[in-house]
């Protein structure tokens, strides 16, 4: 096995060096009692914008599920993932989502899915652009959220007949 060939080598969880660490502890193992938010204001602003957009998407999923109960199963994963995104974003000190209202829902379920796919795609573009403007773990978080939204946009987009053959 080639050590560097990570695409084919088995993954381990003990390699360290990547990902987001959990709560930091001091050298004596004590968790800091109360940390003052010290994240760069530009990063807080970028993550707050992302949290707000995730909240809006969550509201849209809820509105669609309410109007079209038959879509609930199809929408469940996306709704859950946006909630996860919001949790991770709001874990950064100073980040808060601005809660708005759900946008108008199209009158048919097919149109509603197409509309939601467009919103996911637009969010992915926005979050990828935001990721490019920050660095480190925050860039990774925004990029992963953009990747999830890209995946959701693909799965929500109605397949053309040629794709189904």
């Amino acid at each position: 096995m080639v050590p560097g060939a990570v695409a084919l080598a088995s993954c381990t969880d003990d390699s360290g060096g990547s990902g987001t660490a959990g709560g930091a502890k001091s050298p004596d193992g004590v968790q800091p009692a109360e940390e003052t938010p010290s994240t760069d204001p530009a990063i807080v602003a970028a993550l707050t914008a992302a949290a707000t957009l995730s909240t809006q998407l969550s509201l849209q999923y809820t509105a669609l599920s309410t109007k079209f109960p038959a879509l609930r199963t199809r929408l469940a994963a996306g709704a859950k993932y946006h909630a996860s995104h919001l949790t991770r974003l709001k874990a950064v000190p100073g980040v808060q989502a601005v809660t708005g209202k759900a946008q108008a829902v199209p009158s048919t379920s097919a149109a509603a899915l197409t509309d939601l796919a467009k919103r996911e795609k637009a969010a992915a573009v926005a979050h990828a652009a935001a990721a490019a403007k920050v660095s480190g773990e925050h860039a990774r978080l925004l990029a992963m959220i953009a990747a999830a939204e890209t995946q959701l946009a693909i799965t929500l987009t109605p397949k053309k007949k040629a794709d189904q053959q």
Partner: protein
Amino acid sequence: MTEVEALQAALAGEHAAMYGVGVAGGKLSGARFRAATDTFEQHRRNRDRLTRLVIAAGETPVAAEAAYDLPQAVSNTATAAALVLLIERRLTAVYGDLVEAAGQPAVRAFAIQTLLATASAQLAWGGAPVAFPGDV
């Protein structure tokens, strides 16, 4: 992980991906074979881009191995598609590392773009959306 270490890891991953997709392509036909060919070409372009970035950083690009151990036997269409899916999943994490380690905007932009591309490719090979593609 430094930026150049992450670039080298991504390059090693792309070398391995080209090998794995090549093996998988041997068990595919029709539209699936064409998709594998496109995937192979995309990884070749990524490999070339990463090679240039490593050289620009003053390092020697990691070389490809003659062969790689496959994580599972590839004997039919299903196992071939499963191998490509596994490769894309692992590369997504590798590019997540590169996004995190990138210091230069151009490297970060490439890593983000490729992370999104590999996350999308997962769906084409039988994967489903996840909350955080590229998370470790």
